[in-house]
């Protein structure tokens, strides 16, 4: 067997019990690994009425079927659990090195269940697994924790995953961090680890991941690498400028949200673009495990240096907060990495706060002297810190923009879908992406089906972003394909250059399976439906497949997309039909039978 290790590590924190069990290969055939298999095990093992922050919730930290192999971009792992932010399946993935090393240590997945009676960390050195006391690092930031625990482990090759103070404080927008600054960012997964009193997981693996067909793999790999090299986006655009190259493209298309989505074009966006960052801030590229694309940045700013920032981060602390101060954006990003926070949700919550102040909902005396207004960069950075440490109003903001805005009676000012903050694309000017936001299984998220690729970037082919034609079909295929890529443990960015057949060739070569393109895509569809069924069980319905009032009812007010609206009411029924769901968005028995569910 190649790719899969075939072994799961299960840690019951309540009892302090560590055990291993075989990976269920029958299930893996249908759900692959990573997001798919972990999602299936999660829905099988965790009852839908469990409180996300209770000991009854479980965390599945899973590598993909190809994680740790020589497949390109194969460094990813996923954190699957019940989201404390919105109750849906959280499946936040992250790159870096940690995921590959979990497999080198001999595990496809680590499952955390129960709750430790004191702060602990997990130390995994191949088959030596220990639960250790973490009192001395509790309260410390991610960098200090990583440094201390690495020294304690006594081997520089150990990889560290940890939460920051935000996760300990049960912030619903806290992240799980690995390799210092790589983040399984979304859906509040850091708080679930915090609720279990688990500060960190160290892995040191000396094994390797087998390859079923090394000879076939040579050919498949060389073809994939060739495509990644020759593709303009993966071969040049991303390596040269990083993801922030999108600032100008999205802005010039008139779908670049400004000041909490009140406007959609920023005349000064170039001040914080990927081009400007490359010219003035970039120190070096910083790729994840086995990644020839290397979109990751390592940058300098006034008084510091560190990782990032990514496009979404630049946007959210920049234009969406009315700010064009790159140093402040870097500082906010760096704080999020150290405190263990999701940059998108944190920045969007601060921007919602700025609008709450603008409209008079928040009184000046609530701010303890820290400015919360569009354009105030120093204030914005300080609010990030206050959110991380749950100080003052920061404690309320740490619950995410929905709960925060709702507490002032103005939930409509929270730019969220299913309480998760929407990233940097105004859906009114890009119909497929709008439908994708509304139907994403984890809420407002762009990486469950990145329709920006065809609708703006023209990959794999150019679609008219304003047209509804064919969009339901595209969204379904993109969502299913993304579920496959996530479950293989590859980076979504590889899909700018690679298609379904390339992924099928890779998984077949590595694991020795014989998936046809259709069978592999069906795995993605199964994964999607499994997540949907969970969300319906926890109480979501078609009514929540929607967007904030502002993005549904009001047209775009400025810029090149002025006047455009999202035609969600027309798109949704088409999407449900395309998926084989009934009019209420529930998968039909025929649909589930077809998928063998």
């Amino acid at each position: 067997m190649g790719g899969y290790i075939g072994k799961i590590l299960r840690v019951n924190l309540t009892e302090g019990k560590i055990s291993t069990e075989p990976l269920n290969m029958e299930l893996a055939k249908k759900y692959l690994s990573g997001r798919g298999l972990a999602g299936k095990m999660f829905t099988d093992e965790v009852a839908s009425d469990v409180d996300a922050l209770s000991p009854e919730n479980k965390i599945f930290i899973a590598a993909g079927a190809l994680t740790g192999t020589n497949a390109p971009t194969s460094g990813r792992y996923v954190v699957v659990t019940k989201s404390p932010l919105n109750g849906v399946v959280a499946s936040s993935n992250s790159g870096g090195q940690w995921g590959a090393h979990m497999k080198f240590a001999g595990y496809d997945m680590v499952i955390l269940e129960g709750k430790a009676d004191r702060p602990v960390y997990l130390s995994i050195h191949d088959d030596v697994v220990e639960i250790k006391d973490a009192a001395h690092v509790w309260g410390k930031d991610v960098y200090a924790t990583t440094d201390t625990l690495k020294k304690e482990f006594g081997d520089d090759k150990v990889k560290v995953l940890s939460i920051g103070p935000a996760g300990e404080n049960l912030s619903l927008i806290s992240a799980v961090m690995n390799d210092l600054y790589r983040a399984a960012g979304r859906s509040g997964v850091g708080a679930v680890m915090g609720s279990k009193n688990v500060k960190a997981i160290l892995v040191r693996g000396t094994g390797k991941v087998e390859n079923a067909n090394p000879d076939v793999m040579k050919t498949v790999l060389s073809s994939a690498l060739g495509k990644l090299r020759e593709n303009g986006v993966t071969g040049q655009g991303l390596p040269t400028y990083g993801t922030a190259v999108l600032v100008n493209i999205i802005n010039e298309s008139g779908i670049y949200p400004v000041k909490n989505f009140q406007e959609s074009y920023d005349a000064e966006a170039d001040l914080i673009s990927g081009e400007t960052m490359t010219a003035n801030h970039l120190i070096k590229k910083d790729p994840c495990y086995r990644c020839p694309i290397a979109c990751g940045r390592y940058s300098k700013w006034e008084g510091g240096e560190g990782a990032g920032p990514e496009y979404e981060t630049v946007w959210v602390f920049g234009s969406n907060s009315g700010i064009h101060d790159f140093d402040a954006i870097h500082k906010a990003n760096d704080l999020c990495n150290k405190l263990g926070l999701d940059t998108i949700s944190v920045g969007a919550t601060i921007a919602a706060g700025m609008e709450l102040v603008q409209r008079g909902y928040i009184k000046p005396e609530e701010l303890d002297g820290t400015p919360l207004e569009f354009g105030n960069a120093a204030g914005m950075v300080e609010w990030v810190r206050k959110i991380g440490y749950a100080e003052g109003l920061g404690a309320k903001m740490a619950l995410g923009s929905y709960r925060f805005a709702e507490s002032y009676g103005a939930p409509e000012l929270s730019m969220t879908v299913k309480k998760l903050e929407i990233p940097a694309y105004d859906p009114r000017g890009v119909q497929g992406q709008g439908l994708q936001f509304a139907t994403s299984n984890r809420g407002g998220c762009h990486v469950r089906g990145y329709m920006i690729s065809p609708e703006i970037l023209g990959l794999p082919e150019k679609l008219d972003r304003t047209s509804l034609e064919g969009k339901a079909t595209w969204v379904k295929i993109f969502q299913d394909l993304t579920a496959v890529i996530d479950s293989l443990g590859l980076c979504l960015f590889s899909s700018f250059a690679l298609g379904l057949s390339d992924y099928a060739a890779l998984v077949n070569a590595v694991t020795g399976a014989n998936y046809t393109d259709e069978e592999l895509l069906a795995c993605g569809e199964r994964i999607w439906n499994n997540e949907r069924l969970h969300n319906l069980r926890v109480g979501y319905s078609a009514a929540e497949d929607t967007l904030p009032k502002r993005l549904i009812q009001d047209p775009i007010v400025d810029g090149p997309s002025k006047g455009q609206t999202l035609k969600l009411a027309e798109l949704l029924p088409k999407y449900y039909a395309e998926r084989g769901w009934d009019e209420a968005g529930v998968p039909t028995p025929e649909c589930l039978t077809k998928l063998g569910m």
Partner: protein
Amino acid sequence: MRVTVKLFATFRDGRFKVEERELPQGSNVLNILEPLNIKPDEVAICLVNGRDVNAQHFLNDGDTIALFPPVGGG
């Protein structure tokens, strides 16, 4: 007629970020690209007033043309 030309990413190398151009009536995007020494197949995204168009697209007075090589992210 007068149009605004915006260049991005590597198109800026040795050229400019934003410039105004005076063009005869009936000009199209190709008439912008030629003097800039940018081949049409190097252009991945050509936006005129935010709408994606091809190189044959005819221009009007006051148009803003934004030109991008293959780039992307997320």
